[in-house]
């Protein structure tokens, strides 16, 4: 086997995995703290992509500004989603039962139907992106292959964001309260943490980060269609389950693992039949998901429940 093909696929897998890991950070927070599985994950990611695209194509704003606005839009969206959907279902509840969990799944499912079809309605199904925009240098050469600088920009932003979120959760009082509610909501309220406030904060943060990650996904993919929601949402679930619920670092590591597994299996399958390497490589990610769910359901960094 050609070693450079292996190297290229591994590097691509790594670069993609970082994006994937960051895209799942918001999901892991919501799931870990509130037991809310955001089934609209893919559509929420796309919100960030489309906000940046509109600002770029219609108002001529730099994508960097667009990314920042996307983050702000995401925070507002999180606020709205909490008060419109989640508060009634989980706001005042101390222990989330299976029945409540199902209701939240269905509510987020409803959101995903509405959002996805809103995108189809407003933006159509053709790919949209930043065109040829870049930071001045479109490509760099590494290991005999070319990598778009936009991908490197996306990865750098993703890594910085993960670090900021990690420090926020680890160092600040608010972040510590979020982790306290994640570990034991009842005990947390006993020591004076207002659970409704924390749930609101978690939703705002979780949705905000997910929308922000849509900007990185767009930089990575170069263009997006509404259909991409169906690629990133299931993969985010895989990443969260593999990384462990509520673990930000776990999410990043799991994203990288999935990216590298994808890259590796693509190389291996290409040896036998290059035409089918992409679908088979994607299916391995889901086989990993089912295996993890069965044998190590708490994930790599998760606590045993």
């Amino acid at each position, binding site marked *: 086997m050609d070693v450079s093909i292996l190297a290229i696929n591994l590097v691509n897998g790594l670069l993609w995995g970082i994006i994937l890991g960051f895209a799942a950070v918001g999901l892991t927070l919501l*799931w870990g703290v509130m*037991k809310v*599985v955001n*089934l609209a994950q893919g559509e929420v990611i796309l919100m960030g992509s489309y906000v940046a695209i509109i600002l770029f194509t219609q108002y001529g704003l730099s994508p960097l500004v667009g990314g920042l606005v996307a983050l702000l839009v995401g925070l507002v969206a999180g606020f709205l989603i909490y008060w419109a*959907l989640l508060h*009634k*279902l989980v706001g005042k509840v101390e222990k989330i039962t*299976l*029945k409540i*969990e*199902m*209701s939240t*799944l*269905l*509510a987020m*499912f*409803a*959101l*995903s*139907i*509405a*959002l*996805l*079809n*809103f995108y189809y*309605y407003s933006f159509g199904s053709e790919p949209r992106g930043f065109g040829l925009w870049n930071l001045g240098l479109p490509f760099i050469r590494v290991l005999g292959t070319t990598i778009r600088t936009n991908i490197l920009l996306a990865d750098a932003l993703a890594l910085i964001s993960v670090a900021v979120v990690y420090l926020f959760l680890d160092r600040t009082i608010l972040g510590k309260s979020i982790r306290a509610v994640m570990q034991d909501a009842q005990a947390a309220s006993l020591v004076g943490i207002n659970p409704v406030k924390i749930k609101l904060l978690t939703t705002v943060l979780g949705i905000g980060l997910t929308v922000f990650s849509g900007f990185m996904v767009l930089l990575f993919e170069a263009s997006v269609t509404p259909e991409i929601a*169906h690629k990133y949402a*299931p993969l985010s*679930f*895989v990443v969260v*389950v593999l990384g462990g619920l509520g673990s930000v670092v776990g999410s990043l590591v799991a994203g990288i693992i999935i990216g590298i597994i994808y890259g590796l299996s693509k190389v291996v399958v290409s040896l036998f*039949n290059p*035409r*089918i390497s992409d*679908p*088979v490589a*994607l*299916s391995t990610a*889901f*086989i990993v*998901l*089912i295996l993890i*769910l*069965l044998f190590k*359901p708490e994930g790599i960094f998760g606590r045993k429940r």
Partner: protein
Amino acid sequence: MAGKESTLSHYLKSPTLLIIVFVVLGILVARILGMSTLDTLMTIMYFMGIALSLNIIMGFAGYVSFGHAVFLGLGGYAYVLLVYFIKPLADLQNVGLGLGAFVVAVLAGLFAAAVAASVGAAVLRLRGAFFAIATIGLDFTALYLMKAIVPELNPEQFFGAQIILPADKIVEKDIVFNAMFLTLVILLAVNYYIRKSPFGVGLTAIKEDEDAAEVLGVPTTMFKIIAFTLAGFFTGMVGALFSLNGGGVDETLFNLGHSIDMIVMIVIGGLGTVLGPVVGSLIYFELYDLLLVHYPGVNLIILGIIVAIVVLFFPEGLIGLLRKYKVMGMRLRDLLE
């Protein structure tokens, strides 16, 4: 004898059975008198079929299978590949006014059921969101594997995962209608039987509190696997006949959108009843049609909002809502089982 009579009169008083018979006869009469186009009736039966299939695991046992479209896809692909590659089966389709097509659909359903049984044995250990996520994972695994395998089966004819059946391998719409109708009747009977049987009671116990059910001697693992396998089997059959009706199959059959359809119909109608999916699918069909006609483009956005409202404010669905009321001194709760 007296016991038998009271059972009979009990059944006659039970509106559920009457409504089911009414719906079945209604479809038949509409078909015979030509009151509705064949396509409309097929769509209604398809909606009702997938809702009733998922109802076995979601409505009765409380396990929401978000990736249930996988069995629709597996059934569809199994059917189309069977008649594409095996000549006797393609000929069998035309035998007996739809009975032959029904038999081939059973084969396709059995394939879906085999997958459901083997995967179910593993994933049914998971509860709640984890189960939902696992079935979504299963759906995507199957989708990507189909995308990889199908083009290899006949590289000259199959482009991507799409298979179009040649003219000599598809059958007249009448035959598909008969086979689908038969499937629906059986599906209704199975749903009704489960609701009334100890098996159904066991599933309800699992839904209410699985650990308690286990302690009380309900073989939870076996019951769940049987329910999931049945749900997979019938979804596969419906998917098979749906594909035959469309003259082929492509990867959109695995779309999570189909899972949305099933879940929404059950939620609108009401969880845990036989009538729920029946009524839910009729409402959903009308709603779908109405929104499509009056608000093309934004119809599905409105649908999403309606679903959110139902989940937030009427979590019991229509039948659940009606069950709370009394009519003529009788509690509807007892009647709408």
